[in-house]
């Protein structure tokens, strides 16, 4: 990525140059420490993959590696559950909630950042308070509400609920981000006859992209991994999200650890792929200055 950033035409952002960073041995030490930490961060997931590949008979062996890797576990896990269907639901819910959050939060954040209006503080407070309520505490009320509306087992319900619980962070981060973009640029556009909404879309939005991307990733990941609402608001295996589907490997008398972890690994992969696309932009946005 360093090369990718270097290849970029010019990076005129503030150049952050921590002092004395050309000192070689120091770089080496930093690299070693960083690589060690990276390994530490990945280790638990590596162990999950190893467990996923264990033959059933060696599941409870306290060894580092099994005698052989059972790659068929990854195929079995698809046959033994509705993973494909669950994955589709999760994709739909995470994608839908992310879009909804952006559609709803962006205008609100924009207006709040740009305008002084009565109730602005109350609005921001309301948003902050939402962040403090966890769905876990509200499950019965949520179930009751969506039952009365006849919306149980619906993808839309999961999209709406997940979006609502992620709004707070998105509004926060977008308000802050847009607030840091000089308003003069849009005003110039508005003098030229563009509406405020048009100015927001054409001028501010592109500049606020890193903020938008951050809010997007945050919402997507949180929704992707959401469990409690998925468990409560859906009961039909075909409309359950992945996290709930995985939970079904925990049964009355046994836990299918190898399948559980195989499915978990499958669940992580799409998020990592999303990161491969988007996180690069975040990182480059974040580091544009230092990697000249």
């Amino acid at each position, binding site marked *: *990525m*360093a090369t990718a950033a270097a290849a970029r*035409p010019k990076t*005129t*952002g*503030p150049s952050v140059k921590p*002092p004395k960073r050309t000192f070689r041995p120091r*770089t080496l030490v930093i*690299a070693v*420490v960083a690589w060690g*930490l*990276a*390994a530490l961060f*990945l280790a638990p997931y590596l*162990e*999950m993959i190893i467990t996923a590949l264990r033959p059933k008979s060696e599941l*409870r062996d*306290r060894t580092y590696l099994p005698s052989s890797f059972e790659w068929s576990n990854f195929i079995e896990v698809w046959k033994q559950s509705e993973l494909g269907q669950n994955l589709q639901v999760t994709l739909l819910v995470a994608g839908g909630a992310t879009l909804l959050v952006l*559609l*709803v939060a962006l*205008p*609100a954040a924009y*207006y*709040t950042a740009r305008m*002084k209006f009565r109730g*602005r503080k109350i*609005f921001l407070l309301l*948003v902050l308070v939402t*962040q*403090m309520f966890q769905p*876990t*505490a*509200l499950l*019965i*009320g*949520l179930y009751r509400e969506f039952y009365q509306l006849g919306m149980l087992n619906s993808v839309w319900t999961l999209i*709406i*609920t997940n979006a*609502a619980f992620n*709004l707070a962070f998105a*509004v926060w981060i977008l*308000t802050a981000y847009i*607030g*840091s973009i000089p*308003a003069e640029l849009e005003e110039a556009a508005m003098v030229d006859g563009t509406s*405020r909404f048009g100015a927001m879309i054409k001028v501010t939005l592109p*500049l606020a992209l*890193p903020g938008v991307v951050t809010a997007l990733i945050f919402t997507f*990941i949180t929704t992707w991994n959401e*469990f409690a609402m998925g468990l409560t608001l859906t009961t039909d295996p075909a409309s359950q999200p992945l*996290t709930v589907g995985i939970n079904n490997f925990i049964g009355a008398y046994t836990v299918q*650890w190898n399948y559980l972890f195989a499915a*978990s690994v499958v669940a*992580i992969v799409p998020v990592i792929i999303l990161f491969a696309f988007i996180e690069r932009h*975040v*990182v480059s946005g*974040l*580091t*544009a*200055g230092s990697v000249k």
Partner: protein
Amino acid sequence: MSLKAPPSPAETGGGRGGRAPRPVSRRSGLARLGPLPWIAPVILLILFVVVWPVVELVRTSFLNISISGKNRGSAGTDKYKKLFEETDLGAVLIWTVIWTVVVVALTMLISLALAQLFNQKFPGRTITRWALIAPWAASVLMTAIGFKWMLNQTAGVLNTLMMDLGFIDGPQDWLGKSSTAWPWMMAVAIFVSLPFTTYTLLAGLQTIPGEVYEASRIDGAGTWQTYRHITLPMLRPAFLIGVVINLINVFNSFPIIWAMTQGGPGYDTSTSMVFMYKLKETDIGESAAMSVVNFALVVVLVLIFLKVSRWNEED
């Protein structure tokens, strides 16, 4: 985006919004409706999905609901009384505070170091940053179940590792008793909180102009001095965001403890959130009362922090 690295969100606190909110000057078309068309969708969504169940919750805390789930009528304040008479409540609340403070404090400290480290230039920085993301990309529930699996006395590989390293003589039941379960659960909570926090701080670090360091170096300041007098103060907004988000999330954290110990043995490893969930098994009304208390606590906690940190001092 590559042409200009806009200041990070960290630079301006969410609470105080834009740097220069300007009064509404020109009124035309949509503008006449004021903020409504812009913020109404957010408010509607919050009212519909969050406030409605909250109202239900508060109502439930005054109801007498049987174990089967049937509403048997009003309970007045009985459920609150019953809650405060629970012998375990005191210990649960104390542990909730310890849990929150320890996890948030260590998360912030470690994230500061990580952000500093990953802000340096070294070979393989991108890949190592990717690794940092893993606990965030994976579901917290799965990570917690993974650790529970690794710490299992009879099947957990961490026991083998620690035996080989000579830390312990034989496999231990780490999650079986509170004295060892708490540190492990705190470690997992910190582990999953690090990516987001580190990224927030990294973003903060990026906003510090290089010239400032330049000047400091010319003044002959050492690395540590530079860090203390320049980096840390300028990192304050990002730091505050990290603390507030973590305070709320860690206080409300449920899956880690639930997956690893279910708050047991007994209530020995329960925070108030887990306690609330366990109460639901026997008394929905009392559990709702606990949720209400819980919410009051998190509000107080966040307010205290905002006050102490003088969040709004620049407003």
